[in-house]
């Protein structure tokens, strides 16, 4: 996906003005937030499970080379081919080469955010391979002129049923339907011939398991099963190098948290553990199985102050609970990953200078940290990115000057006392007869839309001193 994060402010403004989107985004709270909190009560000990999950994820990250080696060995032993890509472009090139090698004309895809990083559909189309998205949400976006997903697990959360009904009627050239099961049936009817005629299946991988050389895929629609069983020639898994888990036991722990944190389900409707291509006694499955494991900035985070980010299990709870995401939706963030996790990943993967707004556009309320199933300290990481921006001159001059002046005064109590004394008086005057301040210079962005009751005109310090004297 092209990076558009530099247009954050303009995009967020458009999204705030979009009445329909505002209505659609309410689903985040009414659906996901409520469902998650109910599902978590099923766990005997949520906190201990989270601690376990953190430990298991970090064990993999701390010895990533060892576990990737183990994974490669075990997957290869079972007949799969493991390839590594240093950049997202390399990864797309590898998938294109695989498609060409096997004479692929059509590829069916189940959901993968890494494939968005790779701009994979575009790369396949460029060489004449037709990519078909089969996750319902991703399918809707693809037929809507390749619109970008706005959420990592609910890619089309920004749309409502009516918009999709219009789109289906237009693209499918059929009478407009508004009943969701009927609409889904119509999409299935369109997708079915693709499932039957594709030569290659492409899936993401929620995790790859080192001890067994398998990939674990979580879906709710069963389309992944069609993508990995129907195409006879090839199945390609694309995922990040950080998604490796040492053992199936580790996977079991993580799976207690992933669907519950994501959609509030105890378990997803479908869960596949796929190991190797079709064996000689197997009835189905692809002749060839490939893993394309993508770095694209991940290994740079190992050992850095952002290392904790690598244990992310992509549940989306941070964005579902983020007051900012809830108001502006995912497209405002301008790249593959939105919300708090995206505000850490985007600057890390595409360059801090290309996403200057993202670490700043957070109230640091801390709810993302509270709900994260693997306890990623997202607010701390956002603050560290702000620190990097401040140090490298990426903030506007005004900010440096304002902070310089403020810090100078705040470290000199006498001067500070004098300055605040006058500030309190001036603000009282600004309040006028109504005693409401309509605009504060330097804080216009905030006060322009507030009428702040004016202070009484004396600082606490002054009042306290007077009291002490009497």
């Amino acid at each position, binding site marked *: 996906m092209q990076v558009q994060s530099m247009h954050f402010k303009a995009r967020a403004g458009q999204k705030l003005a979009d009445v329909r989107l505002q209505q659609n985004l309410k689903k985040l709270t009414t659906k996901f937030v409520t469902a998650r909190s109910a599902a978590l009560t099923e766990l005997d000990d949520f906190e201990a499970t989270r601690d376990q999950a953190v430990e298991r994820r970090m064990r993999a990250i701390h010895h990533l080379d060892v576990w990737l080696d183990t994974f490669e060995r075990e997957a290869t032993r079972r007949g799969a081919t493991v390839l590594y890509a240093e950049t997202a472009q390399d990864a797309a090139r590898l998938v294109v080469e695989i498609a060409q090698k096997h004479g692929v004309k059509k590829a069916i895809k189940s959901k993968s955010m890494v494939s968005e990083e790779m701009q994979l559909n575009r790369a396949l189309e460029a060489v004449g391979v037709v990519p078909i998205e089969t996750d319902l949400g991703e399918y809707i976006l693809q037929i809507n002129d390749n619109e970008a997903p706005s959420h990592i697990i609910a890619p089309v959360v920004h749309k409502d049923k009516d918009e999709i009904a219009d789109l289906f009627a237009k693209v499918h050239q059929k009478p407009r339907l508004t009943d969701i099961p009927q609409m889904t049936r119509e999409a299935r009817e369109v997708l079915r011939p693709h499932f039957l005629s594709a030569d290659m299946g492409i899936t993401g991988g929620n995790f790859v398991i080192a001890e067994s050389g398998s990939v674990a895929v979580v879906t709710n629609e069963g389309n992944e099963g069609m993508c990995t069983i129907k195409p006879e020639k090839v199945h390609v898994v694309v995922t990040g190098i950080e998604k490796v888990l040492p053992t199936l036991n580790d996977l079991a722990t993580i799976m207690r948290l992933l669907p519950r944190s994501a959609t509030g389900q105890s378990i997803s409707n479908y869960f596949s553990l796929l190991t190797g291509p079709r064996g000689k006694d197997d009835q189905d499955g692809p002749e060839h199985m490939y893993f394309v494991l993508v770095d694209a900035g991940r290994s740079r985070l190992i050992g850095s102050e952002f290392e904790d980010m690598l244990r992310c299990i992509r549940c989306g709870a941070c964005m579902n609970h983020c007051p900012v995401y809830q108001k502006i939706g995912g497209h405002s963030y301008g790249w593959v990953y939105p919300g708090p996790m995206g505000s850490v990943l985007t600057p890390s993967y595409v360059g801090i200078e290309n996403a200057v707004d993202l670490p700043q556009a957070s*109230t640091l309320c801390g709810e993302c940290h509270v709900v994260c199933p693997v306890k990623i300290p997202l607010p701390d990481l956002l603050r560290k990115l702000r620190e990097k921006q401040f140090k490298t001159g990426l903030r506007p001059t005004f900010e440096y000057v304002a902070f310089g002046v403020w810090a100078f005064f705040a470290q000199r109590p006498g001067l500070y006392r004098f300055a605040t004394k006058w500030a309190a008086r001036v603000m009282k005057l600004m309040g006028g007869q109504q005693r409401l301040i309509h605009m504060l210079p330097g804080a216009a962005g905030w006060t322009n839309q507030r009428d702040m009751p004016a202070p009484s005109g004396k600082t606490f310090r002054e009042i306290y001193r007077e009291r002490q004297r009497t």
Partner: protein
Amino acid sequence: MRVGLMVTCLVDVMRPEIGLSAIKLLEAAGCEVVVPEAQTCCGQPAYSAGNKAAARALAEKFLDEFEGFDYIVMPSGSCGGTIRTHYADILADAPAALERYQRIQQRVYELTDFLVNVVKLDTLPAAMPTAFRGSVTYHDSCSGLRELGVESQPRALLARREGIALTEMPHARQCCGFGGAFAVKYGDISTAIVDEKCEYIQSSGADAVVLGDLGCMLNIEGRLRRTGDHTTRVLHVAQVLAGDS
């Protein structure tokens, strides 16, 4: 028990009466309250902006002023959160100061947390004749709630105030959209968030929203007034508990 009161920079300039209410409550609990003259700001604005050097200078200044007290208390979860949970990071490159900080860290408290869990205040000061009476809804400020665990303490104290009835709003723990410089840099997003908070407050039917932080207070009150709500009172928990307003 000698308690150093950190008034906080916003209370000092914007709402000095809250500082006086805090003193009244601490004295009612039997504390000897001292307000160090030279205090200014805990450094949070600098820390949140990524200006760690300025934050560190203010953290060291804070230590100079407050390390001699038995406890350090402030009518703010935001400043409390900065001092209690972030000073270790802010002072990470200043080992001597970090060591001094570690000796006081566990004695830094948000006001209601201190009143409930340390001094176990049982009798609130007598209310002024002009004191507020009516139904209130409590807004959980982010840092107090998530960094310091301030949630039941203010509610337990409010329940003891005669003439006050607590009624919960939906999503009381949701951020009001202030976030310091966030509200200035992204005013429109902040407004959309606070509008939702205002709706929740109004839907509770309470006469007043009570909270524990100046940032939320100015943000919520400012938005209520701008949108024409001149009746819903916005009060700091210290004012209500002290019976001052």
